[in-house]
């Protein structure tokens, strides 16, 4: 091996980028080449000096800033009105535009989700017990919505509330999935027959609409679409189990 060749190999050798046979050839050449041996010594010394520099971990403040950006992809990162605007735009494009809507005001559904996720006052009746939540609706709305705790499916019931959708009082159930909320609005359907859940995704939100057992169901959440589909399945299964 001539000197230019072994000189060119010094860095790769120090950096562990030579193959075993190349390393052997280099080490052999090194014995006869004092200049390259010196280069090697220098590269190693510098490597040592750089590696003993103390690593500085990311400051807590930076970590907190990033956490804040991550957690509320769905919520606080945008101002509520901006979020509402984007969601309204999203749903008006493709979500509730079909015949299943029955004229329901999509803005109202979005507003319901925002009220639940952004206010301290998320539910009017806070309970995971359906025997508390279901009777609470009696006398407040003119139908009895199906209320089930879905803890076994991974969606514990947080409680219920009433919201006005298209000028009419509607039952709203709030479920939890880890730190996410799923907001389910339910009202009696004017059509018969079931319609399977249609899950769409807009602006980081999963939206689901379906018809089951005589009810129109609309769910809004920041869950992954697959989780939203599981949620709809869990609701249907619980409703069917009771009939």
């Amino acid at each position: 091996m001539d000197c230019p060749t072994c000189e060119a190999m010094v860095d790769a050798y120090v950096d562990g980028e030579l193959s075993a046979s190349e390393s052997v050839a280099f080490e052999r050449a090194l014995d006869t080449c004092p200049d390259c041996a010196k280069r090697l010594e220098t590269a190693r010394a510098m490597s040592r000096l750089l590696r003993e520099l103390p690593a500085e971990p990311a400051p807590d403040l930076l970590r907190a800033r990033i956490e804040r950006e991550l957690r509320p992809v769905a919520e606080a990162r945008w101002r509520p009105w901006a979020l509402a605007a984007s969601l309204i735009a999203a749903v008006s494009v493709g979500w509730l535009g079909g015949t299943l809507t029955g004229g329901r005001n999509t803005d109202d559904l979005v507003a319901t989700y925002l009220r639940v996720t952004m206010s301290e006052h998320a539910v009017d009746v806070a309970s995971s017990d359906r025997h508390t939540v279901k009777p609470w609706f009696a006398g407040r709305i003119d139908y009895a919505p199906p209320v089930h705790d879905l803890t076994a499916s991974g969606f514990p019931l947080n409680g219920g509330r009433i919201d006005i959708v298209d000028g009419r009082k509607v039952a709203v159930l709030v479920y939890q999935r880890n730190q996410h909320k799923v907001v389910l609005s339910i009202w009696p359907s004017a059509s018969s027959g079931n319609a399977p859940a249609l899950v769409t995704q807009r602006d980081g939100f999963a939206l689901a609409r379906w018809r089951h057992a005589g009810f129109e169901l609309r769910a809004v959440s920041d869950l992954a679409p697959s989780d939203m589909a599981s949620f709809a399945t869990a609701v249907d299964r619980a409703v069917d189990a009771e009939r």
Partner: protein
Amino acid sequence: MSDAPKPDAGTVERFRLAVLPHLDSAYGFARWLARDPVLAQDVAQEAMLRALRYFHAFRGGEARPWLLGIVRNTWIDMTARNGAERLSLDAIEDRPSDSPDPEQSALAGDRRRHVAAALAALPLEAREILVLREIEDLSYKHIASVLDLPIGTVMSRLARARERLAAELRGRLGRRDHGLPDL
């Protein structure tokens, strides 16, 4: 940037697992690029948000080189926006020794300060490649992907960067202290 889809909750979870653990690396690299701890936080934060935004385009492999490439692009974009590269060597020159090891002599603390100052004094091209190789411990292949260079160029740049650093160090440290042979 605006055409990237907004991440859904599932994406955020995957991002947390794959990318967030490398925040220390992202910040450390940003610190050496920016040479200013406050500016480095801005660079690292912006890079993390970009990474999240483009996470859907991340096709597995190693997340750390991928993230470091974004940190570098972010830094370049930010300096292009703010005019010339901002110099704040003082931030590093004046930093007190923060070794937690009581056995580390003042001499070792001094040496580290000098080494940090020498590295910080290098031009960006030499600085970034040394940090990626020696501090982030990336392979040539990963350095090539971060810097978007062929491997041959990585090797020649690295050799030049080491020469420059050696010269800087010889100017700052006494011969006995750094263990560097004269060339």
